[in-house]
């Protein structure tokens, strides 16, 4: 080969190298299709597969206290029996005590709530012997309105539990708070005190009552000598076991 031709080839080779250095990255990227999902994604899926929308009210408005929570438990069951099966006997440190109470046939429930699809009450106890009763009432269609109209405030006085205080309470689940309605009542004859924390729960942000809604209530008897604050704290401890995580969420 002639020396001049070799020089020309060298120049062209250098040019090619420069072009490859300049544009090679883009060519390589373009030649490699985007990989299937998950390859470089975050390390682990949320351990809590169920997402719920909870609020202190539900029929007339969405309050600023609506919170999105995650749970390990499927609360979408459409019957009391299915709900009892879906809800484990052990929730965090709390263990079921006694049999489930299916309250759908209770005359008061029938009268005020119609025929709720879910009407379940279960007692839990922790290692320290503290007890609470979880009540889950659910309905869909037009009758779901009854869950909002007949709250513990209107229900308990009829059973001789006089309302002493009612307000909204909040507690941190993780770094964000969940809110619940709080009712303190006293039994007219025995003087027993009962705290009820209650809220509503949906499994979609649509919150369409026709699709179904749950009214969840944690009933806490205040033992003699125990402060209401302490009893309230163990109620929140149980709720944290049901919903250990929140999801930041704003409606627009």
């Amino acid at each position, binding site marked *: 080969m002639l020396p*001049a031709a070799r020089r*020309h080839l060298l*120049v*062209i080779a250098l*040019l090619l190298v*420069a*072009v490859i250095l*300049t544009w090679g*990255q*883009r060519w390589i*990227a*373009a030649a*490699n*299709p*985007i*990989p*299937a*999902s*998950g*390859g*470089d*994604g*975050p*390390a*682990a*899926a*949320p351990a809590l597969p169920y*997402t719920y929308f909870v609020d202190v009210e539900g029929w007339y*408005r969405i*309050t*600023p*206290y609506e919170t*999105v929570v*995650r749970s390990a438990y499927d609360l979408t069951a459409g019957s009391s029996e299915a709900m009892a099966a879906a809800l484990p006997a052990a929730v965090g440190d709390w263990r079921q005590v006694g049999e489930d109470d299916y309250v759908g046939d209770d005359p008061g429930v029938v009268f005020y709530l119609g025929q709720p699809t879910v009407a379940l009450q279960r007692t839990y106890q922790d290692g320290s012997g503290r007890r609470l009763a979880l009540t889950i009432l659910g309905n869909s269609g037009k009758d779901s309105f009854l869950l909002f109209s007949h709250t513990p405030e209107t229900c308990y006085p009829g059973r001789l539990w006089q309302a002493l205080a009612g307000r909204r309470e*909040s507690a941190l689940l*993780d770094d*964000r*708070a969940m809110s619940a309605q709080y009712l303190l009542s006293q039994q007219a004859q025995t003087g027993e005190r009962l705290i009820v924390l209650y809220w509503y729960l949906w*499994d*979609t*942000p*649509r919150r369409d009552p026709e699709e179904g809604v749950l009214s969840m209530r944690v009933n806490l008897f205040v033992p003699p000598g125990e402060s209401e604050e302490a009893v309230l704290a163990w109620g929140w401890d149980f709720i944290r076991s049901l919903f250990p*995580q*929140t*999801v*930041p*969420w*704003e*409606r*627009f």
Partner: protein
Amino acid sequence: MPAKAKLALWALPALALIGAIGVVMLARDAGEPQTIPYTDVNPYGANFFLEREVEGWKQDRTLEMAKAAGIGWIKQQFPWAEIEPQHKGEFEWAKYDRIVDLAGEYGMEIIARLDRPPNWTRQDNRFETLPPDDLADYGDFVYAFVRHYLGRVRYIQIWNEPNLTAEWGFQRVDAVAYARLLQEAYRRAKEADPGVVVLSAPLAITLEDASMRGNHDDLVFLEQMYQAGAGDYFDILSANAFGLDRPPEDPPDPEVLNFRRVELQRAIMERYGDGDKPVWINEYGWNAAPAFFPEELLTWERVTDAQQADYTVRGIAWARAHWPWLGVVNVWYFRQVGDIPPDRPAYYFGLVDPDFTPRPVYDALRRANQ
């Protein structure tokens, strides 16, 4: 042919090529090109909810006030579920045609956010933000959208905040999955109109780790997007820039959420060779919830009305002076139609109240533009 002529035949094209490559290399070495496309624009934009407005005169009044304040960009959602609601290929454009027409009447440009798939695109319809089962359906929608508004809507944004589980169907966020969606949308958009400008989805600013509750740090997510090849599928990087309770000059820090966090996203762009693309701010602002507002509800922290007005104007001026890669800044938000009540902190971002009463931040922007 004489030897000298042969040499010239080789050498001239070679020299021309060397020259061209030299220019490219010099531009790369210089870091920023002299002019980044889509930066020489009116920087003032805002987010609007015109699709939620029932009364036409209110849409008119909204744009009239925006125009008076010097705002030239309408960032507006075009929910797929409203445009192709029931069946594939059956479009209902009328409501959105009115919005696009109105923008044209006021001489304002639209940045169209395209997300919210209709139910027919998915088996699981519990969450409206869940992506479609088949990305080709989304691509078809993007194609139809760009064709329908050819020459009238020139800027489209592909999805919104895919690093938030709430914007990804409450499932684990996935940068690779988003990159695939972006790729499909970009390919079909350019097929419909090579001149349409594609904006990536803005990422929500967050320090969270997806393994905890599904949201993912915006800086990590952006890096993962680039690793997945997303850089080839957008023309403008869209970013969010909320100031929270810090002034606009507050320096960037990966562990801090503030306005200048955008610079950290910019650094990632440059690291992946995307320095020749601009950044547009999708949502920008400070929240001025009243002092009595419960602390637990202050998602965006809070500043006073006066600080909100000052920071908002100051932030744009600061960014224009320091960020040659900046294009449009869309304030979050211009006016909501009354569906966000005053008991929500989000109410206190608005430049104008639902009844069109201007807030101090509106007046400040208007003054800055005069």
